């Protein structure tokens, strides 16, 4: 009898909170966007599904063992936990919401030794890390997940168009204004009292403007892990929305004449150039920005494996089995940060707004940079390829091509836009390195 009661009081129906219901609906909506609208489904399917799992009441899939122990707060476990976390607590004492909050706070701010001891107490009491919490710590906490995605992306990237016309790299630089402009925006909102972001949070939000999923996740996991869920969702959603977000800005900032500029055909690129390029990037990183070494190092390794032609087995695995496995786990891990308490916050609204601003500013500065370069150079650049500098590979380059074709049905900009497009990946990884150096060092 007691057991049946137990099943009932332990069921989802009995325990579910409004926040959890809301978040499950939000996550189902993400799945809808991914499956029916084609929004970056490779990431948003596991993210959305992981978000549902994270919000299953009483399952504690996104909680560590210690957090689960506190959630179920058996008196004898709490007594042991109190001793470790140095929270005042008597065994007989009633456990109120405030008591629980005190334990949760103490756990969140505890040093590493204490966290380990709390884990031991919880394990002794029979609690284990939730599945998603394990995935998060192995894949994102260790930073290995985003790095392996970058390895695979590197192995899929063709730097040919960039090598054929290197000055388009500067378009990829200009588009990073989106990142830093957004940081400024977040600071402004905070100064105005509308939001409340620290500089770490502002930087992590700004990186959405890099339009690169793994870079965003990497930076957020280092600077503001509590915002990771919202940042990743915003980054991937806006990347999917690039065909909607960019064209109005591109049209507003250019004249019809500029949009019709025809670019000269790209020269063929030598195999050796392609092999040397990732090595050159690596050496520049080593000399100028060691903090970008993990991200750009893995990216360059992937690209070298692809281009060198002698390790096709490895390049193939990096582009397929490995990246696919990591994507599943990375998505679920991001989903673990879509808990109601973390996501249903005013900050998320700020992130969504600022993320869109970041995309817009990056698009605009990319286009304007192209116009500026045309002032000084005789070989004109079609400013429509500037918007591709935000990255969002290869979507943004396709958008440049499409808007170009709308203005001149014989003007194919795709390959020209791929140069700034992949330069944008390098640009935002460099920006990520600067931010981590500046704020983390």
């Amino acid at each position: 009898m007691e057991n049946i009661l137990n099943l009932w009081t332990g069921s989802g129906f009995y325990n579910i909170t409004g926040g959890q219901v809301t978040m499950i609906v939000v996550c189902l909506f993400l799945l809808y966007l991914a499956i029916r609208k084609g929004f970056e489904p490779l990431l948003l399917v596991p993210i959305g599904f992981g978000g549902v799992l994270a919000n299953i009441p009483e399952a504690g899939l996104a909680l560590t063992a210690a957090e689960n122990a506190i959630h179920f707060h058996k008196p004898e476990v709490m007594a042991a936990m109190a001793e470790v976390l140095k929270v005042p607590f008597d065994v007989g004492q009633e456990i109120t919401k405030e008591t629980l909050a005190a334990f949760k706070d103490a756990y969140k701010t505890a040093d590493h030794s204490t966290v380990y001891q709390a884990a031991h107490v919880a394990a002794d009491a029979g609690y284990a890390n939730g599945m998603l919490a394990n995935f998060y710590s192995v894949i994102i906490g260790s930073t290995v997940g985003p790095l392996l995605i970058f390895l695979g992306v590197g192995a899929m990237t063709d730097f040919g168009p960039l090598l054929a016309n290197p000055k388009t790299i500067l378009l990829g630089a200009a588009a990073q204004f989106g990142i830093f402009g957004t940081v400024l925006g977040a600071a402004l909102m905070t100064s105005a009292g509308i939001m409340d972001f620290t500089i770490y949070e502002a930087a992590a939000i700004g990186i959405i403007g890099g339009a690169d999923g793994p870079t965003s996740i990497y930076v957020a996991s280092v600077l503001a892990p509590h915002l990771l869920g919202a940042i990743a969702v915003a980054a991937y959603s806006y990347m999917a929305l690039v065909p909607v977000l960019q064209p109005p800005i591109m049209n507003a900032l250019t004249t019809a004449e500029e949009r019709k500029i025809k670019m000269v055909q790209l020269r063929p690129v030598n195999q050796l150039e392609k092999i040397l390029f990732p090595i050159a990037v690596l050496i520049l990183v080593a000399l100028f920005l060691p903090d970008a070494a993990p991200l750009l190092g893995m990216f360059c390794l992937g690209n070298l494996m692809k281009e060198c032609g002698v390790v096709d087995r490895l390049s193939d695995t990096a582009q397929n089995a490995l990246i696919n496995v990591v994507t599943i786990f990375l998505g679920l891990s991001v989903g673990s940060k879509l808990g109601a308490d973390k996501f249903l916050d005013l900050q998320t609204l700020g992130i969504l707004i600022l993320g869109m601003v970041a995309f817009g500013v990056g698009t605009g500065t990319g286009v304007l940079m192209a116009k500026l370069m045309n002032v000084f150079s005789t070989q004109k650049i079609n400013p429509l390829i500037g918007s591709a500098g935000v990255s969002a590979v290869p979507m943004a380059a396709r958008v440049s091509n499409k808007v170009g074709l709308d203005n001149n049905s014989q003007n194919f900009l795709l390959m020209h836009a791929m140069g700034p497009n992949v330069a944008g990946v390098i640009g935002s990884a460099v920006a990520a390195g600067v931010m981590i150096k500046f704020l983390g060092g």
Partner: protein
Amino acid sequence: MSDLMSEAVSLMAVGMGFVFVFLAILVGVTTLMSKLVNKYAPAPEPKVSAAAPQMNATSNDAQLLAVLSAAVEKYRSDHKK
């Protein structure tokens, strides 16, 4: 100006400055590298990638060709008469 604002402004200045300097150097290095390559090692035979084709692909093709030749052979011999 609040502390946060000044931090954001200097992050922007340092960050964009660094991004531009880094990528500008990259433009230079890439251009130089391409020139040197095309001067001293123009369009080498794509020997490297040909020398190490992916094993699976090879064996799949081999199987494919085997089945294919067998099929065509059979067809030929059936039609000979």
